[in-house]
């Protein structure tokens, strides 16, 4: 085993609420991600998955415990990973191309150079011909691809994806899964994906961490030993079904053994 690139150790996060008892969102979460791995976090809504990603992106800090990404630790995580939030957050006042290059623009890359780098990837991302389009003209699937392109163009080798396909219909989502799978080799990135879609987690990941309901903790780690690249037909094989079954069982076990500490207010 090489040294992990992401280390999360005993991380808890408590949210204060006005005129109400604080909510414990995460309770002693520990896991690691190796360089080059595709790891997914699955769990029910409100189990703190997004909070965990936001902390790794440097947008939130744990109440206790420690997160490390490469050499970066508490207080220096902002900007280490490329973070793709749940909503595409495309800016309607910018063209698709200018949305995609925003990271390069912030980094001070000259506009012509930034656009050249972005254009190179437009074909792979299935966006050719839409460079000058407004985000409002795109379908939901295309918007997510622009959002992912913007994330990839940060040049970071570590991607944090927060339910990137959650808002899409099942058919579009399956298409994007197959497309992303073919893209993985080219990206050569370490990816941490948050999702509540078991098919998505099983199909894309090398390893899946199953989280318990709130307060979230890691209930199980399920390895997915299917060879890459994975044609989409793999999702109907017995091996794939076996992975899904163990994910389902882990989720169910986590729900039953854990009595939720609070019932009020879902996330």
């Amino acid at each position, binding site marked *: 085993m090489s040294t992990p690139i992401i280390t999360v150790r005993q991380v808890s996060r408590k949210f204060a609420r006005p005129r109400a008892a604080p909510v414990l969102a995460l309770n002693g979460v520990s896991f690691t991600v190796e360089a080059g791995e595709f790891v997914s976090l699955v769990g029910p809504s409100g189990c703190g998955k997004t909070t965990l990603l936001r902390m790794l992106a440097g947008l939130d800090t744990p109440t206790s415990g420690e997160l490390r990404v490469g050499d970066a630790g508490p207080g220096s995580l902002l900007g280490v990973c490329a973070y793709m939030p749940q909503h595409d957050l495309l800016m309607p006042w910018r063209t698709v191309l200018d949305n995609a290059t925003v990271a390069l623009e*912030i980094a001070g890359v000259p506009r012509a150079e930034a656009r050249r780098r972005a254009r190179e990837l437009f074909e792979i991302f299935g966006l050719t011909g839409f460079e000058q389009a407004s985000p409002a003209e795109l379908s939901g699937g295309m918007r997510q691809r622009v959002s992912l392109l913007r994330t990839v163009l940060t040049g970071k080798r570590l991607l944090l994806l927060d339910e990137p396909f959650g808002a899409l219909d099942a058919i579009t989502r399956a298409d994007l899964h197959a497309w992303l799978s073919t893209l993985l080799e080219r990206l050569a990135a370490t990816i941490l994906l948050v999702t509540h879609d078991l098919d998505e987690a099983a199909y894309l990941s090398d390893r899946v961490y199953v989280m318990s309901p709130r307060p979230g903790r890691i209930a199980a780690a399920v390895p997915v030993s299917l060879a890459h690249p994975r044609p989409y037909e793999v999702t109907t094989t017995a091996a794939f079904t076996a992975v899904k079954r163990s994910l389902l069982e882990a989720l169910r076990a986590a729900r039953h053994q854990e009595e939720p500490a609070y019932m009020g207010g879902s996330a």
Partner: protein
Amino acid sequence: MSSMPHLNQRRGPAEASRETRAPLKIGAARGWGGDRFRAGWLLSLLIVALLLGFWQAAVTIGHLESYILPSPLEVAQAFGKQSTQSLILDNLMVTIEEALAGFAACLVVGVGLAVLMFRSRILRDALYPLLIASQAIPTIAIGAILVIALGYGLAPKIVVVVLYSFFAVTVSVYDSLLTLDPDLPALLRTLGASPWQVLRIARIPAALPGFFTGAKLAVAYSVSGAIYGEWVGSTGGLGYALQMASNAMEAPTVLAVVVVMAALSLAAFAAVAALERLCTPWARRRPSAKE
């Protein structure tokens, strides 16, 4: 909002200016080139023509004296007179200057207050009730006080214009600042953006449509606000001209000045609307999000 101090018995042109203003707003929201806009324009002209015809007929049939209610023709003739022309030309620039200065001050005050309220919850809670209360101030009632305190010059007009219209700017800019998804600034920060870059890339563009909504309202109020300020006490401007003509019992000239005021309001509004289309082309792509 306090009402404009048009002379009560002379409602005609004021009605007409309101009628012509409405289709312009629709045109601004939908773009200028469309058939629908052209149809709106024609309908607007038709309404004005009908009103004028009705008015002319009422004066002719009712045998009304010119000093009670001049006919549209008499108003048109007034425009031809050397004395009316010089009265309007001598005073037009004063009003434009006051309205522009007031409009600029109103944008500064309006945007400034909106940003303060957006940045600090305490300031918002403290300021919002005060701002709403400020809208209850009857500008007519404090006009005299303003003249006593600030004199006959530019200052009281700017104060009146700001009182008239800063609220529209503050509310629309504040609301548009709130429409920005807080995740976007967060995302930009993960990309290494400085606060200034977040402002330039996300906050300012997101607030622009609201800013223009407020600016369009404010500019329309600016002209009437400036004229009201002149009405209370001044040595020049269209409001002053209005009073001169009124004191001389020259009703056709009074109405001629009112027509110029309406045209000035329209032109000012059209200028801001044109700037809006230039600066926020994306806002037109999604009319549903705007209306």
